[in-house]
């Protein structure tokens, strides 16, 4: 049996290789376009690695996806967008570190040592959970945990009050904490 628009989601969840072929054929132009837009000033290898990472995440986590073809496009689009943004931020931070002459001489401040560093697995886990939130909450969580922006800056970007951002983060954390693996992170 081959994957088609009607059955690829089911076959993907069953880890059928033809479903992987199908999503690469159908969605790689979208993934490549989004990744290239966000990472346009980075190296070609960074864009390629980002694309690889998106398809690996989708393949390994397909069981978590719920919805139809239209939802799938939205899902893979979101994963690409946030993975590309994440990669951009990490690369930018690396460049900043490399260019900081004084950094090596400084001891880390309490703020630096306390800052939560998301490991790769955690980032994936959180990204997939965040994809289930509604649009505004999702953006707030991405800005908070992927872009590491302060709540006041998030509020400014989204045209919300800081209190509204605080509340939405609080409610969102409670919701995401129903996932046992994320409980420790958020509560």
């Amino acid at each position, binding site marked *: 049996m081959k994957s088609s628009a009607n059955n690829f989601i089911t076959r993907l969840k069953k*880890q059928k*290789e033809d479903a*992987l*072929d199908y999503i*690469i*054929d159908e969605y*790689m*132009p*979208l993934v*490549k*376009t*989004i990744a*290239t*837009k*966000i990472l*346009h000033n980075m190296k070609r290898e960074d864009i*390629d690695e980002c*694309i*690889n990472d998106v*398809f*690996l995440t989708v*393949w*390994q986590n397909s069981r978590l996806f719920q919805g139809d073809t239209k939802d799938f*496009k*939205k899902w893979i*689009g979101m994963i690409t*967008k946030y993975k*590309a*943004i994440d990669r951009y931020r990490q690369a930018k931070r690396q460049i900043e570190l490399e260019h900081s002459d004084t950094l090596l001489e400084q001891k880390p401040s309490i703020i630096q040592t306390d800052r939560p560093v998301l490991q790769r697995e955690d980032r994936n886990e959180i990204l997939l959970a965040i994809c289930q939130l509604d649009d505004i909450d999702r*953006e707030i969580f*991405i*800005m908070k945990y992927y*872009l590491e922006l302060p709540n006041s800056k998030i509020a400014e*970007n989204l045209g919300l009050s800081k209190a509204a951002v605080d509340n939405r983060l609080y409610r969102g954390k409670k919701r995401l904490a129903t996932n*046992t*693996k994320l*409980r*420790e992170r958020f509560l």
Partner: protein
Amino acid sequence: MSMKEWMNIDIDNLELLEVTDYEKARVKQYVLKKQKRKPIWRHIAVASVIIIATGFAFEGSSIADAAQSLINQLFGSKEKLKQIYPDEPQEEFNYFERHIEIAKEHLTEEEFNNYSQLMKEQVEIKAKLQKEKREPNEEEAKRLHQITEILRVYENKFALIEAQQLVSYPIAKPSYVPNGYNQVNESFYLAEKDIGEDPTVELEYSNGEASFSTSQQGIAQTNDLEYLWQNFEESESYSLHGFEFVYVKSEKMNKTGMRVTVPEKRYKITLIADNLSKDEMEKVLLSMVEK
């Protein structure tokens, strides 16, 4: 593009970039390669503890009887196990009898007792979760992870022996490895998609920056490597020390590769490298086939 614009990308109204067949092949290769990090016997042991009465390999033999009896003893009836693992593909079940037998044969009595008790505990947790229709809680998840890690230590003791029993060709390991490279995967991996055929045995080496892998498989067999193999732009076939070699090179992928075929033993080995010279690849492959 500003961050705000990134956040607001409208995925339905983008002018999409073109994607070449080579790019698609590269992504597929990457995903499938990552997927294979789990050796097949581990997958079976964890996920597919079901025994099918008509296992093709040992059907009706004393080994089958012994394995069946052992499994009944450890996990209760096979019907019970079928209920616990209702979705497992049948082809994988046949491997499990062999797995248990090999474990019994190659572990000490004490090791096997520990090993089988851990498996039993794993199945019991799975059965409980299924009965209560829920995901594992934190404590259960931690224990399952712990069990998996200990099982892996035991399984590494007989992984090569097990792999050898699953394939019809002699498994080869290089006696020559380029300076600075070490084997990074200590186990022998079999691609899950090869179930029902001779599995592919993969070894991976790295020097910290670059890596290379060897994939040994039946002579007529194909696997996901072919997608990558077909995308090398340059190819050269030649004979060396009585063996048929193919050397491939790709500037686009920044990789080189080499395949040696051993017709009398019905296998071939494909080497894919980030950064190895033709000479080095020949030495590695010759050290595998010249025995």
